[in-house]
């Protein structure tokens, strides 16, 4: 069986389950002007299956109209300047709150204040500068957040405003996309106010020899959404065309897909089911509720480690985590937005490419370093911006050294630079033996093509599940499907597997 055909294989078992994928962005801007956008969220109870099958109780956000709550909460997209209204209904048994960190004026938090059970609160604001924001329940921190009440709020700069490409079953709208280069000659970045270095990096992606696929074959510029003339990338295309997912999941993927083009959002978390069980039994972190936030912080022992709600193999394979796995061609740079909702500090390490650290907690960095491993800290340890400005190291260096709870990377997607041999030669011609290698796994055959690498947190404790089971923790995969040849995506040859 050829690997690309796997999706035809085994279609049973797809009953009405929510898959923990990043769900529907609730709105699009359909005009070139700022839009009015409304999001209706509720807070709900749910059981979430961990990688070993254990069912753990969570408090989760649910998008109105969606069949299931989602872990993490739905990604909310906006463009800078949009007028955003978020209505949050508390369907849980105790008081909760809703906050977006540093999304207000002067990086102030936006907060609804307490929401009584059964009540709805509203947050109305103008979408801030482009960047990666976290929404969460800040109450009794970190308990309510870690027990599931968190999600990503992504703001794209107004310059990137588009009408999205055709949605499923909607054949004819004319998508409008400004292209990767703005009228002023600069490339689009994720930011409203990029630093000179970040701007230069994005300008250089499609222009400089060190980002070339091979000499004479330029790499591409970054684009924040899928341009109209681009096909839907694998494996989302399979999921959409083959209707392999439940209808509501398909709709979510179809709607979010334009925004996930050349972008990944990784929401990290950790789970100590001891505390979830108290909540399931009716407890909470209010005074006398059975979960003392101080006890929680002193005793939290992570047992499962999640990326977008999944672990290990389930967060690493193209078919089980299409919105998490990086799978693209050499020459196609990607932005990765990392958010950490958990109590641990992680140290994510990318194999095969060093990445660029663009921003930490939406502070766009003035020195764009190029590491292979970077600290992603916790909300509790985020350093207030005003204190950073007075830091003897300066904001850029302090954030590079310490990290923050939100870190943006640029993954250049260059040919892994330490593959020996002539760089003028197509990679498929340089390593034919490896690409043709097929190894036995318990009687089944697995090809080495395409080229696959891990991204994992290097604390390694976080690579476990239930205290063992390496590598079933905080991990996903970084896949090179092929390389650009004359600007066309050419997959690596695949050996024929009998």
């Amino acid at each position: 069986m050829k690997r690309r055909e796997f999706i035809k294989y085994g279609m049973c078992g797809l009953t009405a389950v929510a898959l923990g994928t990043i769900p529907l962005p609730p709105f699009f801007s359909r005009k070139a002007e700022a839009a009015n956008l409304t999001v209706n969220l509720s807070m709900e109870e749910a059981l979430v299956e961990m990688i070993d099958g254990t069912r753990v109780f969570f408090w989760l956000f649910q998008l109105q109209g969606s069949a299931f709550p989602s872990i993490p909460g739905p990604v909310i997209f906006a463009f800078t300047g949009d007028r955003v209204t978020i209505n949050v209904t508390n369907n849980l048994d105790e008081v909760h709150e809703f906050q977006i960190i540093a999304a207000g004026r002067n990086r102030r938090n936006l907060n609804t204040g307490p929401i009584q059970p059964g009540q709805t609160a509203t947050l109305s604001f103008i979408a801030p500068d482009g960047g990666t924001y976290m929404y969460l329940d800040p109450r009794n921190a970190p308990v309510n957040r870690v027990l599931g009440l968190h999600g990503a709020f992504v703001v794209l700069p107004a310059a990137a405003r588009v009408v999205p490409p055709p949605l499923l079953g909607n054949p004819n709208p004319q998508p409008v996309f400004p292209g990767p280069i703005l009228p002023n000659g600069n490339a689009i970045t994720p930011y409203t106010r990029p630093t000179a270095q970040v701007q230069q990096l994005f300008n250089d992606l499609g222009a400089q020899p060190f980002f070339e696929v091979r000499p004479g074959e330029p790499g591409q510029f970054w684009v924040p959404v899928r341009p109209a003339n681009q096909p839907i990338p694998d494996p989302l295309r399979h999921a959409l065309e083959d209707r392999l997912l439940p209808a509501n999941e398909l709709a979510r993927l179809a709607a979010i897909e334009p925004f996930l083009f050349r972008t990944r959002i990784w929401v990290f978390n950790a789970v100590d089911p001891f505390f979830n069980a108290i909540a399931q039994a009716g407890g909470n972190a209010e005074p006398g509720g059975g979960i003392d936030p101080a006890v929680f912080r002193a005793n939290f022992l992570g047992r499962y480690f999640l990326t977008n709600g999944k672990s290990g193999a389930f967060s690493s394979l193209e078919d089980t985590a299409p919105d998490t796995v990086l799978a693209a061609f050499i020459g196609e740079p990607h932005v990765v937005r990392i958010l950490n909702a958990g109590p641990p500090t992680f140290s994510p390490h990318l194999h095969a490419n060093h990445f660029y650290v663009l921003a930490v907690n939406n502070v766009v960095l003035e020195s764009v370093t190029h590491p292979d491993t970077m600290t992603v800290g916790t909300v509790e340890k985020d350093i207030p911006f005003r204190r950073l400005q007075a830091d003897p190291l300066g904001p850029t260096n302090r954030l590079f050294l310490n990290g923050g709870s939100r870190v943006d990377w640029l993954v250049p997607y260059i040919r892994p630079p330490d593959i020996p041999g002539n760089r003028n030669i197509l990679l498929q011609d340089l390593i034919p033996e490896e690409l043709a290698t097929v190894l036995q796994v318990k009687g089944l055959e697995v090809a080495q093509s395409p080229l696959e690498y891990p991204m994992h947190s290097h604390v390694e404790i976080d690579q476990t599940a239930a205290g063992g089971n390496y590598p079933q923790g905080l991990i996903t995969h970084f896949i090179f499907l092929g390389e650009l040849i004359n600007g066309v995506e050419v997959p690596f040859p695949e050996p024929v597997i009998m």
Partner: protein
Amino acid sequence: MPLPLIRRGIEPPQDIPMFLKFVCPPTFGGGPLDPQPPTREVSRKLDTMIDIPLPPSVAAVTRAGRDDIRAWIIEDPDDPNGRTFPSPIIRTVEGDIVWGDVGFAFNTHTIHWHGIEPTPMNDGVGHTSFEATANFIYQFATNTAGTYFYHCHKNTVLHFEMGLYGMLVVDPPNPGTRPDIPAAPFPTGGPGFVSAFLPNFPGFVPGANVVPYDVEAIWVPDEFDSICHELGHDAFMQKCDNNNPNDPNNFTQDGILNDFIPDIFFITGVFPRVVQGNLNNLPIITAVIRPNTRTDPDTGPPATLVAPTVRVGQTLLVRLLNAGYTIQEYRIGRPGDALDATVIATDGRPFGIPGTENQYSSPFVIPAGTRFRLTTARRIDMLFRPTVPGIFPVVIKHIDWTKTQNAVVPIRELVWGITRTIITVVP
């Protein structure tokens, strides 16, 4: 009404072979694949077991209560003194094509050359390629000078903790501006050249974008959980059931590897004695490592690699790697000391080299006495140009990655241990 249930993924996964590969990596031997003529060859063997003698004060505070600690190391089989912890340093030269001939004493392992970026089969990650049973020749280039390391990537949570790692330094070619410095690769401890874009730094070589250094120190602060070191090779590994790879039974090896409680603290294989602390009185504070601190001659590097001595007017290069599972907080010198650190590179990528993919960053100064942090596997390279003689303290806190001190003081971080060394500056 039953609660909504969110499943862990598609059941069954569509791509059974890939799923199975993730749970039960294939094995392989031989290599190199797609060979290119090597310019450098190294040999390594996994995993040799050594017992590192511990100072009695260390043994007294370990949970396992042994007077030595079992470590697993990656041996250099060509070197009669190649059974050290950390494993013997590998030095290559920028532009080298390296063949790493790796043998295995028993069971399956891999070597991942952390920060080096070759093809997956040379990257040493089992579930994205294979685990090696017999000899395998890894092939990779070392195209950017800087600080790397190598380690086993099987059951890494245990195998990295057990000591299966060593430093990998890629040196720039010698530009020939200092007759006293030999050809690259440079001797460990110095002198040598290092990539750095510091046009005003003494000895900076334009074009080559390197500066000379006289003394090299290697700081690899780490810590052991002595209970982990009692465990067997495949402790709590996932099972692999080929009939149903996502059977929950494959992921139910209830273990203790998430409960990391370090009780032995050291820097680059130098185990200092404990001067304060026990299990009920955290943190454990170790004695200051000095140039004459005794190390085990059979298994450990000399303490001078950790506690360097440098003359006024000379340049000291420190390569720093967090090889522990803690957040490490460093303080070099005291506020106001004439010992500022100039950070020139991270993770094998020098800052600010014009006309390269590294041109978007700049070297920066950490003023003496300023605390800073790194998490696991991160590296930075720092230069010092001391101007006054003295003994300058280096203090490293090993901080829990999740937990706070206790329920009474929930804000304060949980510091498991404190290690210390010194930089000695002589006239």
